[in-house]
């Protein structure tokens, strides 16, 4: 136990403020975010992530959003195990033929109003996999999409910025 406590104190708090990269508006949106989540979602935004055919690159970065540096829970964002509790669907692509039905069903299982965010170049436009016998391509060719976060894969910062923008719009 003493080792654990020592390591905790040695590590300290690693959570960082969101740097206003790319877009100076983001810093403002960051401040707005908590307010929006507080107002619209009673302080708690539940996200259901759906891998609809991704290479797992985007998933790694979505995981990273939960790590101590980005610590998305401080804004009231948390990932839920079921679409039934979700406010927002974070969908990675390209949507494969074998996931198309499962994606539609998950979307239908999510209570309205719901926000859908397509993640990654493949989720936005099919990426290098494109459309073929095996893939349907972009997420919006299967379910309505409210916002897009491009990148291959998008960095955790880009993911947080994208989610903030999706909520602020």
């Amino acid at each position, binding site marked *: 136990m003493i*080792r*654990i406590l020592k*390591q*905790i104190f040695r*590590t300290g708090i*690693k959570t960082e403020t969101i740097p206003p990269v790319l877009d100076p508006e983001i810093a403002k949106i960051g401040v707005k975010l908590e307010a929006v989540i507080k107002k619209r979602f009673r302080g708690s935004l539940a996200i259901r*992530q*759906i*891998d*609809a*055919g*991704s*290479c*797992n*690159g*985007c*998933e*790694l*970065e*979505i*995981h*990273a959003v939960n*790590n*101590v*540096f980005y610590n998305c829970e401080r804004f009231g964002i948390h*990932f839920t*195990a*079921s*679409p039934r509790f979700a406010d927002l669907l974070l969908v990675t692509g*390209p949507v*494969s*033929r*074998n*996931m198309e039905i*499962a994606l539609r069903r*998950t979307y239908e299982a999510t209570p309205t109003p719901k926000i859908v965010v397509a993640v990654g170049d493949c989720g936005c436009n099919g*990426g*290098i*996999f*494109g*459309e*073929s*016998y*095996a*893939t349907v391509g972009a997420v919006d060719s299967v379910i309505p999409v409210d916002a897009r976060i491009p990148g*291959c*894969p998008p*960095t955790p910062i880009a993911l947080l910025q994208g989610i903030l923008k999706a909520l602020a719009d």
Partner: protein
Amino acid sequence: MDKIRLKNLVMNALGSDASEDDSLAPSTVMSLVVPRSRFAETARILKKEYALLAAEWASDETGLGRGYGVYACFRREKEYLVVKMEVPTDDPVFPSLVKKYPAAFRFERQIQSLMGLMPAGNPDNRPWIKHEDWPADAWPLRKTFDGAKKLPRVAGEYRWIRAEGEGIYEIPVGPVHAGIIEPGHFRFQAMGEDIINLEARLGYVHKGIEKRFETLSWVDASRLAARVSGDTTVAHSLGYARAVEALAGCIPPDRAHWLRALFLERERIANHLGDLGAICNDVAFAFLFYQFHRLKEIVLRTNMNLFGHRFLMDRIVPGGVIADIDPDKAQTIMEELALIEKDFERLVAVYDDNSSLEDRVRDTGVLRSEVARDLCVVGIVARASGLNLDCRIHHPFPPYDRIEVNVPVLVSGDAHARAWVRVEEVRESIRIIRELLRSMPTGRLTTPMDRIIANRSGFSAVEGWRGEIIYWVQSGQNGGINRCMVRDPSSVNWLGLEQCIHGNIVPDFPLCNKSFNQSYSGNDL
């Protein structure tokens, strides 16, 4: 001598029936062509010699003036042997290897589903990757199949393996899982908490990668290889690049070899750290989860700062690398490693010290050594079950022919062993990176590629963080890609997960799964 033993054995036994395959580019691996009628016999000879089956695949060679080619790759110690047989288009049947090599059953189901060649003697003819709502005669890897065309959905049913009896119930899981992971379907038959059987059904993330390769140029295809499995982007880029280089006879400069190994080991460290955290999380030890993921994030950030991408995607290309290092960057890595090593050892001490964690991971999900050998598993899974397999040692690609690698081999085959192999490998990778930085040669980063010769093939095997990755590329009549076969370690290791779970309790499945952490995308392609 030890590199041609298998080949000589087959040639002696088959006499004039076996001949060398002159289309495989030289200097990579041994290869033989045998008649269809003696393919199974060849496998029997190799099995007797304790060779393991590494992969089995088919290629449509009608564009090259032939029929179909069915290939099986065997591995024993330092030797790889690719055995080919030709299958005529009007009789698309080939002899199954399942009786000698159980691991062949998935490969053959895949060949049947995607290429439309019947494995005679394989008891399981259910489609694989291709789900039940696909038209039965849609064989995407055939040249006559238009990969751009959408397929209709048809009515069909998948025949699951059943267990029946009083008190037995079934738990279906997926394809959309509870966590942030890839999709796949698992079906358990359980009695109380005890799992009687587990059947995995994958293919949900099939993106038509192998077909897609055939539409791309050799250079563009490198980007596709980097996205076969996003967590293994370095190793897949490397596997593809080495196969193309073998085909083209291109030898990258030494500096490129060293940088490739640097990227490969950094990928290994990052993923092992993530996995160790995730294993601890699945036994509800949040402290180590957050701590290990903190270290992983530090590695990814250094990657971003020094090489421009957190996962080092697209830094390796056929012919060399496109990211360089200077003394300042090397110094940054040295400092980062010192920091990580120190904290890592502290965390490992906590892991080792915790009896409640030990209680969960020890004796859980045991993959016995004999089973591991029968299934021909590779990589961390094999090394946790007593199989000493690592291509960095047994098929050393540069720079590992000049850099020493020590790999841990454990025999208990449980979740703890799979975790501990990772612990030892992180330590070893840190040591290797230091050695790489100390001995980094000077020189250019790439060697220009010559024109690709028609009707040739190239083979490569590299050790990614999950294990051995095999690429086999074949050029067509016009010098483009006729076929690119990808064998991710997951294609064989998923079989191990099904077999290690018997007698475990349902709540331990996530832990077992995490200790394997196989790729869905790399398997489904």
